[in-house]
């Protein structure tokens, strides 16, 4: 049986917005296609072994928990960047997204070190940006898709010149509430503020990540069988409508 190996970074620290929902979606959608998804926690005491994972997942945490693991995560920076260079997929959500950038600076001016995978940095703002959010993405040229989620962040994220955002904000705040963009993409790595969790109501992104992970494992991306996604589409539509009616407002 084909296997996808997932490295889940700091699951006991970074799990604030139901990150295990994202993992459950990846595992089930792999299993329904006869693929086994093996999830290995990679925490404070563990090394990230080169080539060991096809997909890395980093969730969000509360401020205190992020501060507790940030130095340890930053020390894994070389291994994470090498994994992405080698074609492994990454999904980083909220706090995980911030910490894969260059640094996070809090309201008092103290900085948490970042991994430097995403060319961006984050500075805490005065108000939290909270609400439903809808994006338009084009991860593959000519294929425009929407992502519907919920954002809740005090950090304002600035992409560096030339950095590729994950998507254009249709409704909601996005990276900093002003640029009109949300998230960041570097090759097979995706970072975003959107939780909800993100993948149940956006199964196309789950399948995109599974395809990248399979390509890393097998050397080429196989065609993934389509699945009955009626409930997922319905949840997507409700969430998208929420973003249009009440996203991006204080």
């Amino acid at each position, binding site marked *: 049986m084909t296997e996808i190996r997932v490295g889940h970074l700091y699951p006991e620290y970074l799990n604030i*917005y139901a990150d295990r929902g994202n993992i459950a979606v990846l595992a089930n959608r792999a299993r329904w296609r006869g693929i086994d998804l093996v999830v290995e926690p990679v925490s404070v005491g563990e090394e990230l072994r080169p080539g060991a994972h096809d997909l890395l997942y980093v969730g969000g945490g509360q401020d205190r928990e992020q501060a507790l693991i940030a130095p340890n995560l930053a020390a894994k920076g070389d291994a994470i960047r090498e994994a992405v260079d080698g074609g492994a997929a990454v999904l980083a959500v909220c706090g995980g997204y911030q910490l894969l950038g260059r640094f996070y600076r809090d309201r008092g001016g103290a900085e948490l070190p970042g991994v430097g995978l995403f060319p961006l940095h984050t500075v805490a703002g005065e108000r939290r940006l909270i609400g439903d959010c809808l994006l338009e993405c084009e991860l593959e040229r000519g294929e425009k898709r929407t992502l519907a989620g*919920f954002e809740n962040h005090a950090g304002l994220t600035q992409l560096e010149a030339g950095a590729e955002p994950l998507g254009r904000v249709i409704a909601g705040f996005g990276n900093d509430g002003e640029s009109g963009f949300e998230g960041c993409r570097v090759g097979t790595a995706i970072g975003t503020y959107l939780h909800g969790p993100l993948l149940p109501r956006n199964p196309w992104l789950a399948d995109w990540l599974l395809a990248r992970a399979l390509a890393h494992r097998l050397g080429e991306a196989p065609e993934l069988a389509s699945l009955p996604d009626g409930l997922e589409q319905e949840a997507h539509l409700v969430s998208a409508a929420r973003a249009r009616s009440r996203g991006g407002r204080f």
Partner: protein
Amino acid sequence: MAVARAAARLSRLAGTGGGTTVPGKVLSALDPDALDRLAERLPLGSALVSATNGKTTTTAMVAEILSPRIRLAHNASGANLVSGVTSTLLSARNAELGLFEVDEAALPEVARRVKPRAVCLGNLFRDQLDRYGELEHVAERWRAAVRDLPAEALLVVNGDDPQVGDLSRERPGALVFGLDDTRHARPELQHAADSKWCLSCGHPYEYAAAYVGHLGDYRCPACGHGRPPLEVAARDVELRGLEGADFTLAAPAGERRVRLAVPGLYNVYNALAAASLALALGAELDDVQAGLERFGAAFGRFERITVGERGLLVLLVKNPAGANEALHTLVQGGAPKLAVLALNDAIADGRDVSWIWDVDWEPLLAGLDRVVVTGERAAEMALRCKYGGFPPEAIEVVPELEGALDRGLELTPAGGELVMLPTYTAMLALRKIVSERGFVRPYWERAA
């Protein structure tokens, strides 16, 4: 104030609610210091109860204990912001003691204005992050509020919650309660546990016993920060499924065996909090025991209603820790074959529905033949079931609540009981439907 009282009647006449917050809002707009002055008039002062989970039930238990001897101003309907407390004081003119459940975020302001003689703090769990923000921030605001309490005020805290128990160190003479029965410890910390890292040094706590979420007997192996000594404890707990729970209440004044008519370990915690606060306010141990034993559930939290030939069991679910306990108790009491899950996303429910993914629904799902999902976010709830391993063909999506209730009743045999698990606004809507059909009274009548 006459204007505000008139507003209460108007609110009820307009059919928009029980008039439980409108008069307070009107009065606060007309007179910003109204709450301070209304509270000052109470001859026995005020007592406040706050917690993420159980504040309505705990406060109602305290009311049951004290009400035979003391006239109370009690916000029994759950209107627990400044406006709700003000409204309660307006409509209880002859009260001797104010007894208020208070929203976690509103606690600092209510405490500053009411100047309570006792404050009981139960627990802090992640809850509606879109509204309250992170747990640590709520805890910091509580700590500041405790420091600002009047010098003579009594503090009552749950020692089993690291964040809350630590507040006892802010205030010498604080009364600490907790659970002392390792037979009911969970084998490991639940997914929804929050305060897992030592407050002093950040090292993971070790648990001699973890009871509900992160509530338990914890100690940091690195620096020794741990659960403060308990002055009021529950021992020898016997859970009687959905029927109730028995425990031995051990207090400085003596011990009593208490037979609760409400189920689950979380209600033992509520009873402990209520007993501790009542004792701190000077109640006799016999009155505490009698009050707790008389107590039925706070409205909608756990409620059995007869609907024609069928029963309806309603269990409120509103955040991961609370929902886990409700589900655990439900399954222990005999797992149902059918359930109706109602998920709304109004402000009072939390607009961010991600919390349903932190709830351990799986023990319930494992016993179900069929699930009906309803509410404004019914499809999201359906996905939670589907990705929790439940067969999609056994999930029925009926977004409209009344239709889902009828579908559930239709699938329930005569003489059977339908289990419904609604979020807060879904629970209110459900009560309205059931009361319009003549099966229950509106809550503001019941609470009075």
